[in-house]
Structure formats: structure tokens, C-alpha cells
């Protein structure tokens, strides 16, 4: 049977191709233009014109600066985030697979989750000093929760028929973990990982603002304390851009990892 060609609606035309790009970029462009126009000729010390901020941006974020402040931040972020992913998924599989472990750990996990991670920065400083380890720990501790809780849900919610299939075809151990447990939970794990990523960025900045001698958070605070206002604003801009870039990278990874999931859902809707 040949699918009947359908006229593409205006909406679908906007959602794919150049229309989509226009929609995605349109509002930011308008906002930047408004900012530019509204701040042009501003003499307010704390709200410099956007043109000055952009000049400061180019002057500030040189390759040297990137190496001395941006890369260390990103490294902490990467290590802390990776720890949270691995730890959260591993613990989540354990908690999700066993009712006993769940009953045992749930109250403790609820308690730990309720502690706002920035509060732990001074504690971690006492315990592990002012170095990178403290920041990595704060990031990992703060963003492990969405990964952990979503993994637990995903592992618990796996399909019974598929579990039975594994049992009757003798699919045990590592194969089962890889092809049944982790894969069925992967949509939820990805949801948790996405939430965790934004928390990780926040904690990276906060931990560097409190105790660091380099990094993005540290630099922004230094500029503010030194009344280098355009430079400070440029740091904020850079953090925003970094967030967008990381979210984009995340989306690419998700599309690869969850291609089957989105395909399945689209297929179901069309049928």
C-alpha cells in the first residue's frame, strides 16, 4: 500500500527545515536586539551598553583565559557529572531491582536528597580541602539524585512480557543487564541525566564562587569584586552560551541513544 501524499500543514512546514531554525533563533535574536537598543548609550556603571560587553567578551576570553579558567571548570564539571551518572545508574539499578535494598535505602536517600548541595561546600572543604576534589564531589553529590531516582523508576517499570522473554530464553547476567535492565530504563535515565546536567553547571559555578583560585565562577566573582562590570557581564554571557552548547551536545547524544524510543513512539502515533 502506498502512503497517500499529504499536503504539509503550515505548522509542519515550520517544524522542519528552515522554518524550524527561524523559530529557534528568532526570539533570542529579537531579545539581543532589544538589549542592544535599550542599553546603547547607557551611562549606568552597572548596566553598560551591550556593545561594550561584547568588546569586553572578546578581550577577556582569550585562549590563555580559556586555558586557565574555562577548561578547569569544564574538567570539574565533566568528572563530577560522570561520577554522578555512573554512581546514580549503578545504585539505581541496585535499588530498583531489589525490594529489600529499596526498603533499606529509601529513607536514607530521601534524607540525603533533601540537603541542598551548596550547603555541603563548606563541609566538603573541611573534609577534602580546597582543591578540585571538593568541587567535583559537590557537583557529583548534587546532581546524582535525578539520575538515581529516574533510574530506579525506569528499572522498576520494565515490561513484564520482556522480562518473561528473557527468563524463558535464558538471557541472564550481563546480557540481561545490558539488553533488558539498562535499555528499558534508558529513557528515564536520560531524563534524569538532562536534569542533572543543569544542576551540575549550577554547582560548578557555585563551588567555584565559594572556594577556588580559578574557574568560571571564580572569575565572574573576581570581576564583580574588582568592579570590572562589562567583564563580569561577559562571564555571565559565556556561562549561558556554555549551557546552550552542553544542552545541544546532550540532545545529540540522546538522539543516538534513544533513536529506538522516539521511533517507536512516532510509529505508534501514526498507526
Amino acid at each position, binding site marked *: 500500500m502506498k502512503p497517500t501524499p499529504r499536503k504539509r500543514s503550515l505548522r509542519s512546514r515550520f517544524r522542519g527545515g528552515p522554518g524550524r531554525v527561524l523559530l529557534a533563533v528568532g526570539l533570542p535574536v529579537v531579545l539581543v536586539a532589544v538589549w542592544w537598543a535599550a542599553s546603547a548609550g547607557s551611562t549606568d556603571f552597572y548596566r553598560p551598553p551591550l556593545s561594550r560587553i561584547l568588546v569586553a567578551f572578546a578581550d577577556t576570553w582569550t585562549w590563555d583565559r580559556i586555558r586557565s579558567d574555562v577548561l578547569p571548570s569544564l574538567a570539574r564539571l565533566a568528572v563530577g557529572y560522570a561520577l554522578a551518572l555512573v554512581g546514580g545508574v549503578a545504585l539505581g539499578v541496585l535499588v530498583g531491582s531489589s525490594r529489600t535494598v529499596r526498603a533499606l535505602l529509601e529513607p536514607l536517600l530521601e534524607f540525603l536528597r533533601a540537603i541542598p548541595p551548596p550547603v555541603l561546600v563548606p563541609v566538603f572543604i573541611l573534609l577534602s580541602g580546597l582543591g578540585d576534589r571538593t568541587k567535583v564531589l559537590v557537583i557529583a553529590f548534587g546532581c546524582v539524585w535525578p539520575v538515581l531516582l529516574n533510574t530506579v523508576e525506569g528499572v522498576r517499570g520494565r515490561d513484564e512480557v520482556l522480562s518473561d522473554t528473557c527468563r524463558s530464553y535464558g538471557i541472564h547476567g550481563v546480557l540481561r543487564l545490558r*539488553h533488558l535492565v539498562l535499555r528499558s530504563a534508558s529513557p528515564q535515565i536520560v531524563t534524569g541525566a538532562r536534569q542533572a546536567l543543569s544542576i551540575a553547571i549550577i554547582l560548578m559555578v557555585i563551588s567555584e564562587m565559594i572556594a577556588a583560585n580559578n574557574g568560571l565562577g571564580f572569575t565572574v566573582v573576581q570581576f564583580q569584586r574588582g568592579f570590572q562590570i562589562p567583564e563580569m557581564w561577559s562571564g555571565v554571557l559565556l556561562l549561558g552560551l556554555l549551557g546552550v552548547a552542553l544542552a545541544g551536545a546532550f540532545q545529540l547524544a540522546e538522539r543516538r541513544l534513544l533513536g529506538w524510543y522516539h521511533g517507536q513512539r512516532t510509529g505508534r502515533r501514526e498507526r
Partner: protein
Amino acid sequence: MLEVWNLRKVYDAHGRRVEAIGDLTFTVPGGQFACVVGPSGCGKTTLLRCAAGLLPATAGEIIVDGARVTSPPAGLAVVFQEYGRSLFPWLRVRDNVALPLKAQRIARSRRDTLVDEALAAVGLADAHTAYPWQLSGGMQQRVAIARAIAYQPRVLLMDEPFAAVDAQTRADLEDLIRAVWRRLGVTLLFVTHDIDEAVYLGQRVIVLSAAPTRVAEDLAVDLPADRDQLTTRADARFAELRGAVYAQIQKVKTGRTEP
């Protein structure tokens, strides 16, 4: 060979006791194609899950090839009704069929041969790289059948495998499963609620009573081995057998109030 001895299954949940299977005894000799029919809710799926070792029996025992079933036995494959949920949506068709073989640590070259043959046998030789959700329902069930074939079971259990596909696909799949059974010589227990299907497919039809389930009737199907959707279903003997099974099911349905 599949033996069911005095099987009894009682579900005990939330203070409610449901006796799904009362006392069930029958034997399917090696290589036989046996169909199980019964009124809805008569514990057909429970029987199959017990036989597959997926559900512990309350009493009685099930013996597959001489060994008592306590957990899913080796050499036994199951095709579930919910094809959409029994295939791994994240694996391509080929990998779905190959995964149980991988679990058995069958060498790669042998695995490839088995998968190729199985997919060819169900008419999916050109769908290796598709994902299950890209296929129609009937094709998905073919993949599940291919997976069972590649597993080379001695006993094959099928739980209303064609209940969720359209009538024409269903007829094709019925002929497919007859062909597969004849080629493999596998012992096949086929659970269905469809009387016509049971008579058309089986060498034997076991009619179950309403819950608590017993064997109400055990009927040999003496139709020729070569069956055909047109001529077999038009056969007078087919109509006779179909009528006998139908009457029996009506009897167990209305007889439910009797002690």
C-alpha cells in the same frame, strides 16, 4: 514430550483466593501439535506460564523431556501473545533473534546460520536490519516465531500468538506455524480461544473447563496432515470436529453453576 500431572494453581492476592486451575492432567507426546481451547478466563495462560517455568504451580508437576520444571527449562521456547512487548525495541530484527543464542554462547558463525535460516523460514529474509516497531503486527509476530525457531527448542509453547493480528495475516501465520512444526518436529502446545484455529492447526484439541479448570474433553483431530485454508476448512470432518469442540465449550460454560 510435555507432561502435566495434577496441576493446580491458586492465586492468593489481597486476601482473595482464586483457583485458576483445579486439577489438570495430560501428556503431549514428543513431536505432537496439541491445541488447548477453553472459555475465556479458564486459566489457559496460567497453564502455559506454569509449563514455561515462569510461574510456580501450587500443586502437581510439569515435566518437560523427563525433567521436572521448576524454572524455565532449556530447550523450551515461548511465543507470547503480546508480540509488541516481547521483542526488544532497541534491537534490530536480527539481533532480537540472535540474543537468546548469544546467551547460550553459540559460536558466531553457527549463530549467523541459525538466524539466517530462521528469518528465511518465516519469510523475513529481507528485514534483518529493521527495528521491530517499523514492522506490522503480523511481521513482528513472525520475528518472535523466528526467534523461537532459531532457539531450536524441543518444546514450543504458544500463548494465543495470533489473537492480536488481522484475519488474513492470521491465516498466513497459521499455515506458517504448521509448516514450521512439520519441519522441526517440535512438540507444540498452542493455546487459543479460537475453536476453528485449534481444529485447523492441531493433531489434537484439549478442551478445558471453566475455572477451577479441568480437562473437559480430549479430541484427536483426524484431518490429513496437509492442510489448506480453503479445502480443510470446507471439509465435512472439519465442520464435525469444530461442532464437537464448540458444543463441549458451550457445555462447560453453562455447566459452571453445577457442582
